[in-house]
């Protein structure tokens, strides 16, 4: 009896090892291939479940409050001081006597742009930089205005120290008068 039992045990151990190795190989294959291909759900009218495209991160629930706080902070920031006479006069439609200043209350240099239309497409003048405390008392437009009174749109643009970054911009109107 004892002589028959020994050969049976010798065969069983390698067999178990082979089974274990095979199981490990199957598990490994399943783990490595998982997620590479979507599950093949039969298309029988049931919507396929998939990840949506174009979504972004969840927004901050306090986004509105933050936006409002930033808005109020910006509103409290500095203003652009303007000093000018509302009316400018010309007899030829091109050369105007006027008074447009970069107020001494300002900290930044500024340049002026004057437009003939409210859509700001018809530029009449683009000046160089003016330091605070300096003013234009006459200007020459890029093209002449007809006789009459013209409401023009004046952009005051402040430039930071690097002379490239726009610090602030405001618009007011002026009345340009041309007499013959």
């Amino acid at each position, binding site marked *: 009896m004892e002589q028959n039992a020994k050969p049976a045990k010798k065969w069983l151990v390698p067999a178990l090892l082979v089974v274990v190795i095979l199981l490990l190989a199957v598990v490994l294959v399943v783990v490595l291939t998982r997620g590479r291909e979507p599950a093949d759900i039969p298309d029988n009218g049931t919507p396929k479940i998939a990840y949506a495209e174009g979504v972004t991160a969840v927004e901050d629930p306090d986004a*509105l*409050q933050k*936006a*409002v*706080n*930033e*808005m*109020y902070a*910006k*509103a*409290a*920031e*500095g*203003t*652009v*001081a*303007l*000093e*000018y*006479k*509302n*009316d400018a006069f010309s007899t030829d439609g091109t050369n105007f006597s006027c*008074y447009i200043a970069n*107020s001494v*209350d300002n900290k930044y240099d500024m340049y002026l742009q004057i437009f003939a239309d*409210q*859509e700001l497409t018809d530029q009449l003048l683009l000046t160089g930089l003016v330091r605070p405390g300096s003013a234009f008392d006459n200007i020459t437009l890029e093209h002449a205005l007809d006789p009459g009174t013209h*409401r023009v*749109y004046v952009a005051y643009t*402040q430039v930071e120290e690097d002379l490239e970054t726009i*610090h*602030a*911009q*405001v*618009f*007011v*109107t002026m*009345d340009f008068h041309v007499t013959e």
Partner: protein
Amino acid sequence: MNFKKIMSTVLGSTLALSMAATAFAADTDLEQSTEITGTTQTPTISISVPSTGDVILNPYKMSVDVSEDQDGSALVTNQIISAPAYIKNKTDVALSISATVTGKVAGEAVFATASTQSGKAVTTKSAFVYLEVIDAGAGDDADAAEPTTALTDASWKAYDAKAANQILLAAKAVNKANMLTVPAVADSSSSFIAYRLAGDAASSPTKAWTSADTVSATIAFTFTPTVQAAGN
């Protein structure tokens, strides 16, 4: 008779001489005429204008605190939220204020011409936005940054198409003249003009609002020196 003739001649000559002298004097006066040169002094407008401004669309009426101290004392659910902006005025004559407002939309937002909150439900992403300009009163002194008396909700009014101081925004330039007249400011003083955007927005459009749907505006003010009517 001869004596009378002589006296008459003498007196006549004297009169003639005196008249001649007078006439001579008159000629001298003409040459000493004084020329008066006329000039007209026009006022310089002295104001400070805010350079930036934001407007926030809050179509779903989320609650937000707009109190300065963020202590929850001023919770609002306004659909159009903008911080009041102040124009500081130091001009020594009264000013008439006009404005040109050019609205701009982005995404699928559109400007509405009537309130979206009355009548039939609005299905487009419509925003009904108006600019309101008010006299905010005097500042403490010339260096003041805000008016002495703080504005409240009661300072602002609901939209009224007949109101002189309100402009409805559109996707084009809209002008309104003489919205407001503010008095002259004394030396070492200041006064303030306040403005803001307000209105409403469609609460349940067919397509939901997104952050890409926005409205904005460019405002160009006109300040015209004027004489304020007596009693104002």
